[in-house]
């Protein structure tokens, strides 16, 4: 596999890095400290075309490759993990299922404003009693003739307060379990639909994480996304892509931690020399960079497979599992190398550590990734 980007793609990624260097990075600490949604960056990224980077131009996107999108997620995460998840949840979890499963009318009505960055998207699957186990969800959608009526609630929804368009999962035939789930498109402002509260999180504190409540929420019949009772497949294939986005976020966070640690350690003098000169520092960072590069290769492999239309559930799971655990490990060790200053909030290292942790949890915990990978092993290797 060749992961070299074309000159054009590299040019776009360089322009994004330049933007992040000037606009995203300098605001990351404030976004974290004040739990402030990165509204300005979201708007600018939309205007520049990054909120729909890999969707075809006829649907409002920039028409670039999926691999370029993933590299863009990674780049943004290097500067601000919050901003990267806003983009990733929007593109991977909301715009993509509409692109993949939507009717032409749905694409024109919802994908075009999403991909052009005019509107923001979100995805609602998790409930208090149903995260990984989607069939346990209590949200229902009943067929009331000329419309669907949704009742129930969703929790931990990224972008919740700021999103305009939501992809929501609900039981349409409870007794059928995973085969009784359907996906729907719900617009902000629909009567009976509300967003409630704000989760106070350990990391990615600027992202809006809230509860969605459906109280006799009536949505048009044509807002069924994909086939009736085939919502589980919509959710799982969407999460396969989402996991690649989160792996990209993890790689970006870890890479930034290493860069900042090397910079700091070259300036911090102890025992008469920069702490970078101690072999313990060098060897630890060498190990960390090797792990980050390995994670990046797994990430790009999964992205390339998705781009090429190849089976990639297990590849996405491996990329997310390894990248997330690498990010947690690397950020923890970087903080240790910085020492006392790293533990203070005057420096970004403790933020990197807090931001990294969520990548082991959302869009499928590391344990779920192991289930997916072992499931693939079991299915592909005969006794």
């Amino acid at each position: 596999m060749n992961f070299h980007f074309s000159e054009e793609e590299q040019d776009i990624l360089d322009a994004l890095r330049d933007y992040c260097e000037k606009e995203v990075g300098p605001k990351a600490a404030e976004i974290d400290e004040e739990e402030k949604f990165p509204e300005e960056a979201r708007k600018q990224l939309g205007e520049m075309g990054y909120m729909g980077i890999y969707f075809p131009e006829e649907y409002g996107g920039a028409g670039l490759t999926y691999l370029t999108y993933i590299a863009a997620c990674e780049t943004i995460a290097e500067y601000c993990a919050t901003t990267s998840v806003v983009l990733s949840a929007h593109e991977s979890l909301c715009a993509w299922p509409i692109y993949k499963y939507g009717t032409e009318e749905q694409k024109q009505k919802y994908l075009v404003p999403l991909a052009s960055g005019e509107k923001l998207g979100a995805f609602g699957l998790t409930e208090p009693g149903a995260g990984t186990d989607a069939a346990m969800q209590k949200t229902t959608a009943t067929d009331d003739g000329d419309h669907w009526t949704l009742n129930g609630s969703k929790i931990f929804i990224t972008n919740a307060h700021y999103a305009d368009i939501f992809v929501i999962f609900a039981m349409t035939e409870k007794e059928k379990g995973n085969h009784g789930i359907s996906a729907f498109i719900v617009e902000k402002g629909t009567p009976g639909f509300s967003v409630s509260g704000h989760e106070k999180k350990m990391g990615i504190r600027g992202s809006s994480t809230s509860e969605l409540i459906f109280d006799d929420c009536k949505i048009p019949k044509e807002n069924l996304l994909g086939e009736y009772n085939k919502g589980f497949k919509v959710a799982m294939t969407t999460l396969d892509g989402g996991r690649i986005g989160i792996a990209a976020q993890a790689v970006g966070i870890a890479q930034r931690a290493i860069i900042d640690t090397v910079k700091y350690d070259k300036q911090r003098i102890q025992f008469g020399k920069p702490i970078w000169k101690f072999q313990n520092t060098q060897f630890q960072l060498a190990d960390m960079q090797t792990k980050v590069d390995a994670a990046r290769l797994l990430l790009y492999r999964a992205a390339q497979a998705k781009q090429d239309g190849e089976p990639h559930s297990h590849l996405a799971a491996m990329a997310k599992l390894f990248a997330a655990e690498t990010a947690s490990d690397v950020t923890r060790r970087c903080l240790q190398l910085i020492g006392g200053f790293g533990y203070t909030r005057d420096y970004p290292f403790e933020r990197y550590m807090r931001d990294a942790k969520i990548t082991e949890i959302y869009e499928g915990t590391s344990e779920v990734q192991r289930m997916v990978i072992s499931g693939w092993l079991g299915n592909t290797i005969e006794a």
Partner: protein
Amino acid sequence: MEILVLIKQVPDDSVDIKLDPATGAPKLDGVTPVTNAFDTYALEMAARYKEANGGTVTVATIGDDAAVSSIKECLAVGADKGFLIKDDSFADSDPTAKAYILSKAVAKLEEINGAKFDIVFCGREATDVANGAVAVKLAADLCVGVMTDVIAVDPADGGVDVQQQTDTGYNVIGLATPCVVAVQKPDYDPRYPTIKNKMKARKAQVPVITAADLGTEADKVGAAGSLTKVLGLHEPPKREAGIKIVPTKEEPIAAVVTRAVGMMAEAKVL
């Protein structure tokens, strides 16, 4: 409204550049060439003017092939057309010679565009040599009005009203068009390129205009046409360490402050 924006490619001024002791020239290995920051402000102001009032924005620079990347950057953030003005004879031109070349270029570009330029936007100075002279000399060569340190340009009857930044605020001055404006940093930043515009700019052709195209006279360009020449470059002297004044039992704080104020008065910093 036809607008021309003149830009210059310069070494990245965010990097600390040293002189090569052997040659006395700046060491530019590994320093990224960028579009002069003041020129990016000029382009943004021109693009906003065009978007509000209609017209086209043409961008041009005197430079070598590497300068094409700067022109393409401009094409991604508001310019409609770009031209490279390139000729070996233009090397070592000072502001007088450059203004002469650019005055010829203005005429040539007007011929190509089939329309006269109404406003020529320049940055107030280039961040490499910082002469800040080309815009004024160009206006003199073109026999048109010029205003420096411009932070806003608005349409007015028969011309434009410009805001010229001063130490205490700004002057509003009417200028008949055609005119030249040298732009200072306004209260906004240049836009970032959209992906679509960046891809379009990458594919754009940048025509090259040579001395032969311009009909420049050999003794008016390059070193021969320059009124000034660079005798040598020197790094600024290193700042000496300051004086630390610490109160002691013998010289308590009030006495120390009096002495410090006296020293500052003597140094004429107060």
